[in-house]
């Protein structure tokens, strides 16, 4: 037997111990009083394709009439006699609180097709009837739902793996002007490939570009991580220092510590951090002269925005930034 089969059988066994008779039994039982004739019972069994029916008197289970009993009655010319004369009185019952493995063992031991279910051990109060096929159908349902859960789990795991792969990491060297914009451009391409709406792609690209330029222009080097999650894109940038002496000042538009040479290239407008803050839904920056600067900016994707469509669906681009203050014709 393969390991797979052993595992399957262990599962079925475990389930048969877990499932109780009351979960699988039929509660609406057709019963007859002891005074009914064998012929009436025979007609009912034929019509409903049952192999036997319980006989109940004063709410107590007193016997069972099976097809065998009817044949015996026929042999004795008693087909029109009341069933109490020939019915099976030594009853095998199963309490409703027992596991279906107990019922299954009884089916196996006696070769019965059905078992009357009683309210508790030793009781003759009939509460239902159970057949082997009741147990089988319930088992199949359980196994099916377990299989579905396993599938769901596997899908979720695969999705998590997918997410983990959707992380970009860039090392950024100080003064590497020739590499400037590379991290932002690669991030933009990846977001476009993911179907992120163009306006959000542009906002994230601005964040990445400004953060990248800050590391190149003002730090001793650092890195940028871009995490693409189903509901958000998170940009984390850290550098090795020397740190921002006064973050509040650095957040003021126009405030710059850039050198003349850097400004001549069009950098150092003192707008880097304010630009990042304006493009991000969430923005944090911490800095110390010892540990350097750490910046975290998050942009939420449409799935996480109220009343919006999922990222896969095309979303018309909208202007993400305030109207330009000049220069547009």
């Amino acid at each position, binding site marked *: 037997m393969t390991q797979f089969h052993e595992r399957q059988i262990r599962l079925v066994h475990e389930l048969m111990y877990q499932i109780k008779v009351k979960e699988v039994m039929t509660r609406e039982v057709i019963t007859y009083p002891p005074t009914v004739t064998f012929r009436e019972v025979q007609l009912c069994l034929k019509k409903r394709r049952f192999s036997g029916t319980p006989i109940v008197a004063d709410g107590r289970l007193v016997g069972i009439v099976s097809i065998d009993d009817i044949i015996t009655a026929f042999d004795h010319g008693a087909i029109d006699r009341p069933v109490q004369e020939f019915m099976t009185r030594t009853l095998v019952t199963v309490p409703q609180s027992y596991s279906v493995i107990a019922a299954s063992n009884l089916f196996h031991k006696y070769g019965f097709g059905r078992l009357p279910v009683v309210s508790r051990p030793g009781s003759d109060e009939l509460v239902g009837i159970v057949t082997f096929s009741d147990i089988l159908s319930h088992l199949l349902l359980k196994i099916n739902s377990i299989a579905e859960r396993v599938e769901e789990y596997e899908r979720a795991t695969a999705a998590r793996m997918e997410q983990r792969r959707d992380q970009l990491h860039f090392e950024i060297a100080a003064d590497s*002007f*020739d590499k*400037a*914009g*590379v991290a*932002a*451009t690669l991030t*933009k391409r990846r977001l476009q490939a993911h179907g992120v709406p*163009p306006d959000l792609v*542009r906002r994230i*690209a*601005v964040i990445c*570009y*400004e953060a990248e*330029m800050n590391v190149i222009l003002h730090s001793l080097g650092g890195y940028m991580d871009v995490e693409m999650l189903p509901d958000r894109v998170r940009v984390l940038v850290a550098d090795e220092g020397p740190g921002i002496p006064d973050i509040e000042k650095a957040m003021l538009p126009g405030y710059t510590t850039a050198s003349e040479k850097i400004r001549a*290239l*069009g*950098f150092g*407008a*003192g*707008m*880097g951090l304010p*630009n990042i803050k*304006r493009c991000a839904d969430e923005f944090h920056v911490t800095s110390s002269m010892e540990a350097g600067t750490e910046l975290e900016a998050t942009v939420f994707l449409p799935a996480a925005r109220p009343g919006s469509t999922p990222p896969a669906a095309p979303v018309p*681009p909208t*202007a993400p*930034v305030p109207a*330009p*203050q000049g*220069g*547009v*014709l």
Partner: protein
Amino acid sequence: MTVEQLVAALGLDPLHLGDAATREVTTAYCGDLLSDVMAHCQPGAVWFTVQAHINTIAVAELRDMACIVLVNGVSPDPQTTARAKAQGVILCGSERSSAQLCMELAGRLGEGQAG
């Protein structure tokens, strides 16, 4: 107005047109501070600037601009032109200033869209 039409209308020097010269120009922006351009330039713009280095290309690419026009006769170094080609960014040049070019362009954007 397409980039091709813009080049003809302003008499621009097409430094690198590539295969996207039919791209639509919808607006314009003048600016030499890259962060300011990043913040305010709209997608589909023609960008007039004196900044002729590879970061100019990165900014245009990131903001989805229609094309860059290097003004005042500024010419790009070979590295910058190479980057423009590699990233499919349209690069033009002109001897005139941003202001002169904008004045000439004034009112002409949007032509051909309405009709």
